[in-house]
């Protein structure tokens, strides 16, 4: 028995080490937020005779000019959302005050739900510091990029956006509960699929986060689905998108017109 148990422990350890190695490989191959690139680079990522994807990429090129890749670590939606919005506001500075009050509103609501103020304030302060830096004329786009490439700061943003998403889902449990396949409660869904890092975002996450912060996002879907054009879906429905993301199965990147 003892030998068996230590064998299990050893295998567990091996698995963890392997996960570590894979994560390192992913990290080395792509920054959290990449540089702006031409959409053409996608053409080379797929086989020339892959008609569906090549047709969809051509269609994408008609609608968008540039692309910024994000690291595929399961946090890509949250990171892309945070960066793309703040980058846009770095130029425009039109929505930041509203955004800031929405974030503050989310914090109050999370505190009233019983989230520990100890960790919550930590995330909140870090995030607000970044938002405020975007509001300053002296902050450059290179600095914002640097912030989102810094593991600690970048992950703090992701974490806070995850908790905000979770809080919104829980406050709107009645509406969202019908979408939770396989989970008995919203709370259970949130603690398994939303709050932990590296868990991929789904429609539910996107819907909740965009509603919670009042930031409209257009998601352009490029998959093996029907047709030779890419389809854009806007969250919340009917709004005017402030930022655009490209979705390919399991991954989100940032798009620019």
């Amino acid at each position, binding site marked *: *028995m003892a030998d068996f*148990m230590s064998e299990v*422990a050893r295998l567990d350890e091996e698995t963890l080490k392997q996960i570590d190695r894979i994560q390192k490989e992913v990290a080395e191959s792509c920054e959290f937020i990449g540089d702006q690139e031409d959409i053409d680079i996608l053409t080379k990522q797929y086989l020339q005779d892959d008609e569906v994807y090549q047709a969809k990429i051509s269609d994408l090129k008609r609608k968008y000019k540039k692309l910024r890749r994000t690291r595929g670590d399961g946090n890509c939606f949250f990171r892309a959302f945070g960066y793309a919005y703040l980058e846009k506001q770095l130029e425009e500075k039109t929505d930041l005050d509203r955004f800031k009050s929405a974030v503050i509103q989310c914090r109050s609501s999370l505190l009233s739900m019983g989230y520990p103020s*100890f960790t*919550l304030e930590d995330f909140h302060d870090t995030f607000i510091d970044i938002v405020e830096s975007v509001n300053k004329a002296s902050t450059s786009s290179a600095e914002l990029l640097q912030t989102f490439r810094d*593991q*600690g700061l970048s*992950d703090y943003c992701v*974490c806070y956006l995850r908790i905000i998403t979770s809080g919104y889902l829980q406050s709107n449990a009645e509406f969202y509960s019908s979408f939770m396949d396989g989970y008995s409660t919203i709370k259970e869904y949130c603690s398994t699929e939303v709050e*932990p890092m590296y868990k991929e975002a789904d429609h539910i996450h996107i819907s909740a986060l965009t509603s919670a912060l009042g930031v409209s996002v257009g998601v352009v879907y490029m998959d093996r689905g029907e047709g030779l054009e890419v389809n854009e879906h806007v969250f919340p429905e009917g709004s005017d998108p402030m930022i655009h993301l490209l979705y390919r199965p399991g991954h989100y990147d940032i798009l620019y017109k």
Partner: protein
Amino acid sequence: MASLHITRVKREFREVVSSEEAQKSQIKIEIIDESDLTKLKGTVIGPPDTPFEGGTYILDIRIPDTYPFNPPKVKFVTKIWHPNISSVTGAICLDILKDQWAAAMTLRTVLLSIQALLQAAEPDDPQDAVVAKQYKGDPELYRKTAKHWAQTYAGAPKTTDDAEISAKIDTLLQMGITETKAREALSTHSWNLEAAVDSLFT
């Protein structure tokens, strides 16, 4: 932000020390080496009305450099007989230490969750299959065994007479088996001396 995890551990350390539970001596965190805050020693007191009541359980806590985005690695140093904790390695099966960890949680959350686990085992999600089987199949024997382990290893007050148990362990000691091995074999085989002997000598 080079050592985010260390800054955070320092703050969490203060949080635990000033917490209500620490005041009541229910949980504790200690720094082992001031120069290395990634290795901590945790303590959880066995909750009342459980076989672990009054026992002092020492935990080994390791802070990964990706903390708080990944959970701390925690295992029992003190031996314990519990369905969700390996009786051999001390490994813990607890959702928040695995896929339900969130960065909003803290070391205090972890210690309190472990204490809650001692209060309410989850035999359907076992770490130690043998203990879980006993917990479900013979709850009385499970309680007796868990209590014996708590008294032996965790310094829980001796409230039961373990004469029969001690006699069986002594028998195995005389056969040249170490006390730990003897206790493990007997516990695993429902204190059936013959079955324990068989398992040790085959």
